[in-house]
């Protein structure tokens, strides 16, 4: 059993009006972001990490994996340093593996090199600094995966990558084996078992679910009955205490897992690093990008509509200016704007269930609010970058430059 939990918080934007262009106002409302962080820390991060710490103490064979984005680390340090301390403590046990990813939880994998490399490097340095750890397994934003990304992982000397255990990539193979990437045979792939993962991630507290209520015994018996080498349970960390509040019994469910697993001889825990050492069963190829989001498992959640695509195209162009501005603050701000969440907020509901999920995570009233606000910030950043490189704005395609 591979339990992997994902920790991330974006820097949400403040309302940045069109009239604010050139005003020098910050794009990010730090106070509000930290307030949100503290709320979730109270409901989820703190109680769940504490429980996980106890479980590590009590069960010497219990182990799991975590990914922590750079923006999460920044916010944790300011909003809830004790959460960061707890994280450090449990990582020190040596039984909690950390994963590499982009520092900004960004869509850098869709940008020309070297952006992806740079952001993964930034994240590596942050993990080294905070935890003294150098991960060997890579997860891309929202579990995005493609052949191209496998080649990237190989070139960066990663031993493994996470992928969504989706039919489009497995093509009839079970998600319960380790595979190697067709274009990069040194990269082992761990495929998320989305049925078993979503039983906890999505369905746990649903009274409409015919398996409700889910208890550890029942859940572990399903896992034991699943043929294969490995069951990859990948989910959002906030599953515990935030998406399902503590009152649903989700934390007790988590606490009961190691004891229940111990009573089943055929089952044992492994980190992603350890699982990636298993012999590969077959090769997998993914000519197009798959992700773990929504029902289509593609990039539709971030780049599915014209708003999202136009915002991303604009961000791409501003990126060129941000890089050539030579101003680290501008480059950092641009990267914060690349965080995938901003594009996620611009999703225009199509499928019923997905639309609900998007609205739940959005900090805006509508995708149009999200887009307008994002574009204003981006246009302002563009103006600032242009000022630095003191190039007259040409007849650009992204809207005219404004100064007041």
């Amino acid at each position, binding site marked *: 059993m591979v339990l992997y939990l994902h920790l991330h918080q974006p820097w949400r934007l403040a309302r940045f009006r069109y009239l604010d262009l050139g005003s020098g106002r910050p794009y990010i409302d730090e106070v509000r972001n930290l307030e949100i962080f503290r709320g979730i820390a109270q409901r989820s991060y703190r109680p769940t990490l504490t429980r996980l710490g106890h479980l590590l103490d009590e069960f010497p064979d219990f182990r799991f994996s975590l990914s922590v984005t750079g923006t999460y680390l920044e916010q944790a340090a300011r909003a809830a340093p004790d959460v960061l301390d707890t994280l450090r403590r449990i990582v020190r046990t040596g039984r909690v593996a950390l994963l590499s990813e982009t520092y900004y939880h960004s869509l850098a994998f869709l940008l020309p090199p070297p952006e992806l490399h740079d952001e993964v490097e930034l994240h590596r340095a942050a993990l080294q600094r905070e935890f003294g750890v150098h991960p060997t397994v890579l997860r891309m934003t929202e579990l995005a995966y493609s052949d191209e990304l496998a080649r990237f992982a190989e070139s960066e000397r990663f031993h493994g990558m996470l992928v969504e255990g989706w039919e489009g990539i497995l093509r009839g193979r079970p998600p319960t084996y380790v595979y190697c990437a067709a274009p990069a045979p040194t990269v082992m792939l761990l495929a998320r078992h989305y049925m078993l993962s979503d039983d906890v991630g999505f369905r746990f507290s649903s009274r409409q679910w015919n398996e409700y209520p889910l208890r550890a015994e029942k859940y572990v018996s399903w896992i034991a009955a699943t043929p294969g080498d490995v069951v990859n349970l990948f989910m959002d960390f906030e599953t515990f205490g935030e998406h399902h509040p503590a009152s649903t019994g989700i934390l007790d469910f988590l606490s009961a897992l190691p004891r229940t697993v111990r009573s089943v001889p055929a089952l044992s825990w492994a980190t992603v690093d350890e699982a990636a050492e298993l012999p590969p069963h077959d090769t997998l190829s993914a000519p197009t990008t798959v992700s773990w989001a929504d029902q289509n498992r593609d990039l539709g959640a971030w780049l599915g*509509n*014209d*708003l999202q695509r136009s915002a991303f195209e604009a961000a791409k162009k501003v990126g060129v200016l941000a890089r050539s501005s030579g101003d680290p603050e501008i480059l950092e701000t641009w990267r914060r704007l690349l965080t995938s969440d901003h594009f996620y907020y611009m999703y225009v509901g199509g499928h019923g269930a997905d639309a609900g999920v998007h609205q739940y995570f959005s900090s805006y009233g509508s995708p149009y609010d999200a*887009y307008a606000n994002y574009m204003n910030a981006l246009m302002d950043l563009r103006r600032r970058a242009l000022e630095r490189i003191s190039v007259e704005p040409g007849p650009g395609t992204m809207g005219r430059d404004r100064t007041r």
Partner: protein
Amino acid sequence: MLEKAELEALTAELEWQRPRDQAPIRPPRVVGRRLRLLMVGWEWPPSHSGGLGVHSFELCTELAKMGHTITFLTPFPGPYTPVEGVTFRCPADEPEEPYPGAYTIGGTAAGWHEGDIERYNAWIAGFPVGGHDLIHVHDWFGTVGASALARRWGLPLVMTVHSTEYDRSLGHPWSEILARERTGLQNAGRVIAVSAHLKRQLVERYGIPAEKIRVIYNAVRPSERLAALSGPRRIVLYLGRLAAMKGVDTFLRAAARVAPTEPDALFVVAGEGPEFGRLLVLAAHLGLSDRVLFLGKVTEEERATLLASASVFVLPSIVEPFGIAAAEAMAAGIPAIVSKTSGIAEITNSVFTVDFWDIDEFASRISELLAYPALRREMGAAGRRSVMREGWEERALQTVGVYFELVKDGRH
């Protein structure tokens, strides 16, 4: 240039590509038995100035299609845009009209006097009811007469509230009108509010029990899109009455912020009303004389042309129980900016909502829609879909549902 034959071939092809089910001709949905309704109204097209006239016309048209018959009482003599199944009665029709000449003033609400309301209600109260099942009164104008009539004949009374006196007077209600509103609200067995916001007001300000209030939104009718005006200028449009509650000053003040950075934006104010002169002066004062176009009252065709041509629609009302004007603009695919309390914001999020006093935010939203074509396009398309989802037929069915809460439906 296309040759004529090419053009014809292309037209034929377009015709063929047009989805068959675009305008389905289906039998009207009928619920329960056919009712004979006595509707106590106010304006009726073509001589109408606000949303109430449109509402009455659309609602009665759909009700009549479903087989219900309507006697529509109005204080104004015709001409009335005819609808099969709807008969019009006005005091001036009466052979022994008790107050000769009282109802022939201009034929519209303009120039209406206090005493006229009294006389209109007296006429309603004495209206010879003939086999009607239910009385439905709109807003305050005829509530006193309708209540008396309902009591005298033992008929159920439904009242639709389109706006309240508190709102129209911006918090300084005229007690006379307030009393007339109360009379209707208290005597009505059911009250229909055009938004949930309005319903809350009726509960909080008028003490009407929430249980007897139903929310039924307005709708828009799918209209033909006319050819857009051509030209390099992009139109930012206000279209509606020029009344204090509409907040047109905010539109002008926001325009003043946007104008310097958007040299090709043209701000258009279409409509007439008591604020006209003041707004004209304000526009001049703001230095907008060459940037704002006051069109006055527009014809149906001019209106359609404006809706086909505008880039952004703004309805900055201080109070807006529903906002049919914004709904119509959205139906034409124009992204709209409305104030936060507008009823229309309850049925769609494909619209920008702004606090009515926040001029900077209105200005920013206008600029954003002008600056970002993808936003204009996507929001326009989504807004159109959202307001077209439920049409007048749906609203009429919901209204009939309310009628049958009070009338035995006689279903066999």
